[in-house]
């Protein structure tokens, strides 16, 4: 007599896990720190905000009748008598990626209870963030004072360039600013041994999630706004 195959052999165990996580009468995100789950949900909502900005940018750029400025020339820098296209943005990208690298290591040392290294790496991360913000301030002032770009006007062509540029990079810069403040708060708590009392260093990882997300958003802005 043909025996029905037990479905635990048919259905992949990971899919069974999803089914039981979502159907069981308990928390979905078992074994996940509550703060981490909440940070992920916040980041998901932030994903939608930035996606709306980028989609709006796509719509405005595709419907613009005036020529779109060449970003490689707009964001070029004159270094040593040589005009390097987009070099400022490239340096900003490397600064942000480096900060993500140091942040990932800070999380690691946090879970090893190495307070000194965690604090130091978080401070380096915040410093990279400040470098990024400084370059962004330079980029903004160059565009506003030298090129005369405004959110409603752009002497190089399509006015939509000004609107989307200030909106998208401004909102991202705001995120970086908040990230730097968050990092400084958590770093000072680590330095004071706050998390040793509870024995839980998840706060470092949660702050790290936010910081990596800021870097992640920049990856998309870099590709769509600056390189496209």
């Amino acid at each position: 007599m043909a025996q029905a195959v037990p479905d635990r052999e048919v259905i992949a165990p990971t899919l069974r896990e999803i089914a039981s996580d979502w159907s069981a009468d308990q928390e979905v995100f078992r074994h996940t720190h509550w703060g981490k789950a909440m940070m992920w949900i916040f980041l998901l909502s932030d994903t939608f905000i930035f996606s709306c900005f980028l989609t709006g940018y796509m719509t405005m750029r595709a419907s613009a009748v005036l020529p779109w400025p060449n970003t490689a020339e707009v964001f070029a820098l004159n270094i040593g008598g040589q005009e390097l296209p987009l070099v400022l943005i490239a340096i900003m990208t490397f600064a942000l990626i480096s900060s993500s690298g140091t942040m990932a290591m800070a999380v690691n040392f946090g879970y090893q209870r190495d307070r000194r290294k965690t604090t130091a790496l978080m401070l380096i991360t915040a410093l990279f963030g400040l470098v990024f913000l400084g370059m962004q301030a330079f980029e903004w002032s160059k565009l506003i004072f030298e090129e005369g770009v405004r959110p409603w006007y752009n002497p190089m062509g399509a006015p939509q360039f000004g609107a989307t540029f200030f909106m998208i990079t401004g909102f991202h810069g705001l995120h970086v600013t908040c990230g730097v403040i968050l990092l400084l708060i958590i770093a000072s708590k680590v330095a004071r041994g706050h998390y040793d009392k509870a024995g839980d260093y998840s706060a470092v990882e949660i702050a790290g999630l936010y910081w990596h997300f800021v870097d992640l958003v920049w990856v998309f802005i870099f590709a769509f706004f600056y390189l496209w």
Partner: protein
Amino acid sequence: MQHDPSATHKGQQHPISLYLKVWGLLFLLSAMSYLVDYMHVQGIVRWVLIVTFMLLKAGLILSIFMHLAWERLSLIYAILVPPLVLLVLVRIMTIEANYAFWTRAIFMGGGG
């Protein structure tokens, strides 16, 4: 992968060398996407290269730096599936942008 609850219980513990490797890869991918612009690659090749490098970078940051590769599948799907609906928005807005562009071009003399 996600069958080890202790991994999240004690916190994410991965060798530093892994982070350094990902860091190097991200540097390399950024440099390559910068080169796409520097070498004046144009047309469909440019877009394919930019999007490929972008997705690779995003994947590395998400999976390694944000530890998504070691999370439970329920959390991974809860995070990665909802943004897919954005593709619908992009599609709708492409149609809208085309309409606005041609309306401006035909009825407003192309002057915006």
